[in-house]
């Protein structure tokens, strides 16, 4: 029987600064291959992996690369704790470990044929980026597609180099709190961008990933647009240790974020107090 806690070896094949404290890690398997499902995906956007380094430990990340890409996986790593601090000291060519993917991602089958609104802020974008790559690869299967993305300042918007490509296929609505003189996007909260969005609310699916203030986006954009809670899919963040529903760190209410989530439809976790 395969040991779920035994991670596999990967190598950093590319390392890139994304923002002052965020790096993009491109990890390629060493001596193994990413298994793909019937649709050719190596993970479902919204699922997470546990990336690690022997001696430092493991931390959860939602892959940001295209799920069709079989040669590598990309993770946006914000330097925020001990594990990510160690990761930030690594260089191209260094070894890391990987296990997963775990949990349930965004229900991409359900998204087919619908308008899609994605809402995210700050460092919440990686799993949304993977979802965008998926949508773009199958663009004809979706209706109108929007990305609402907010950050503190223009330099804090991640994946800027992908924007040009994304903009050809979907509508990007970007906003920052502290604009620079050359900033052409919006200013202020993501939640103030409702009027930009033209969708059929009864045939729309929504994906969110982001910190607490995203709830405001939910109250102020998605519900006013007429989107039902059941069609709002949120990615929850919790402490993760085992990833296999045992260690109890990630629980919220009756759910395990690692095995029942991390993506939930909104009314699954709405009333949760922890």
């Amino acid at each position, binding site marked *: 029987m395969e*040991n779920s806690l035994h991670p596999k070896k990967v190598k950093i094949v590319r390392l890139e600064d994304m923002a002052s404290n965020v790096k993009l890690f491109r990890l390629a398997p060493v001596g193994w291959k990413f298994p793909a499902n019937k649709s050719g995906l190596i993970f479902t956007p919204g699922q997470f992996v546990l990336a690690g380094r022997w001696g*430092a430990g493991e931390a959860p990340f939602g892959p940001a690369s295209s799920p069709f890409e079989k040669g590598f996986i990309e993770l946006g790593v914000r330097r925020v704790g001990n594990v*990510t601090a160690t990761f930030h000291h690594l260089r191209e060519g260094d070894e890391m470990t990987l296990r997963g993917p775990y949990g349930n991602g965004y229900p991409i089958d359900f998204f087919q044929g619908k308008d899609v609104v994605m809402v995210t802020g700050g460092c919440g974008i990686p799993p949304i980026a993977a979802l965008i790559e998926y949508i773009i690869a199958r663009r004809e299967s979706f209706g109108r597609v929007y990305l609402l993305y907010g950050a503190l300042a223009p330099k804090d918007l991640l994946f800027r180099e992908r924007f040009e490509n994304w903009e050809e296929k979907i509508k990007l609505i970007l906003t920052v709190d502290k604009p620079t003189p050359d900033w052409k996007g919006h200013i202020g909260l993501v939640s103030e961008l409702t009027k930009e969005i033209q969708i059929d609310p009864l045939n729309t699916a929504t994906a969110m990933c982001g910190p607490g203030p995203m709830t405001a986006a939910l109250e102020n954009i998605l519900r006013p647009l007429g989107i039902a809670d059941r069609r709002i899919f949120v990615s929850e963040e*919790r402490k993760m240790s*085992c990833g296999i*529903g*045992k260690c109890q*760190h990630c629980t919220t209410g009756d759910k395990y974020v690692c095995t029942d989530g991390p993506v939930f439809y909104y009314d699954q976790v709405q009333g949760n107090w922890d």
Partner: protein
Amino acid sequence: MPRVISQGNIPNLITDLKKSHDVFGPMEKDGEVVFGKVEDPTNVLLRYKTTLLPPKIFFLPPEEELFKVTNGRVQEGRVEKPFIIFGLNRKDLEAIVYLDQIMGKKPADTFYLNRRKSSILIGVFEEEVGVPPGGDLILEMVSGNDYRAIALTEKGRIIANSEFFKEGKVDGKVAPTETPSKLDQMLLDSELIAQAIKWSRENYRQVWERLGKVCIGCGICTYVCPLCYCTSTEDKTSFDQSVCSRCRKWDACTLPGFAQIAGGHNFRPTQAARYFNWFYHKFVRAYKEFGQAQCVACGRCQKYCPAGIDIEKVLEEIIDAFQKAQPTRKF
């Protein structure tokens, strides 16, 4: 014909088992009964109330090395020698059976299952076994001097068929099963407990606010609980970085940092929230996940809580308040 062993012959059985296995059993140490490695078989207690730490220590140890990485070569932690736990009581056996279900649920915990596969569980019951909770072999005391073998698995049958047991008629009386405690009785209705705890979060907050002040957040209740299994994993590295150990250690959901993420946000910032979660997991989330509360009423948490919290009384209070709050129905 039942297979019977006399009490006087039990040390000989243990001595024989020691030839092929490490044998652990309940014994006295510093005024407490603990599971220890058996050196002198006459030290093994056949009658005792409960041990300090539960038998989960053998399958989910307080600290275990999951992986050892030496110069890039990864080795999985494994069981060196098969072992026997001798002298388990009913509640501890019940707890292991439930823990097997929890850790075996897919994706399973390989380390736990490996330890279980390498082990033999032998219960010793002073009272009638009735429906056996589990384990490989149970010795049921008859007439104070003989024990009847009740084998439940092939491993247990092999031991029961060894020379230390004789084919015998059991003449003596078996003591009736112990009268269930109040907590035992409450646990028969896991559904009611789950409803009451769920209800109490918003409708009987005072109990959690009070307990949040009483609980000192030491984690002892979870360590002594045979059905608590929270862990955290930590890496250690040798000075020259050539050897790394990935160790898994017991954690406790009642400790302050349990639900805290990197960056500092804590999803359960108060002791009241953490203490409530301990109950919520045992009696609500567990009930929804496995259909049964994660408590066998062993009494350890009550006995060893330095703040004197008695979960039987807490449950009683909540269920009582819950039932009083329900609209009375007249038929």
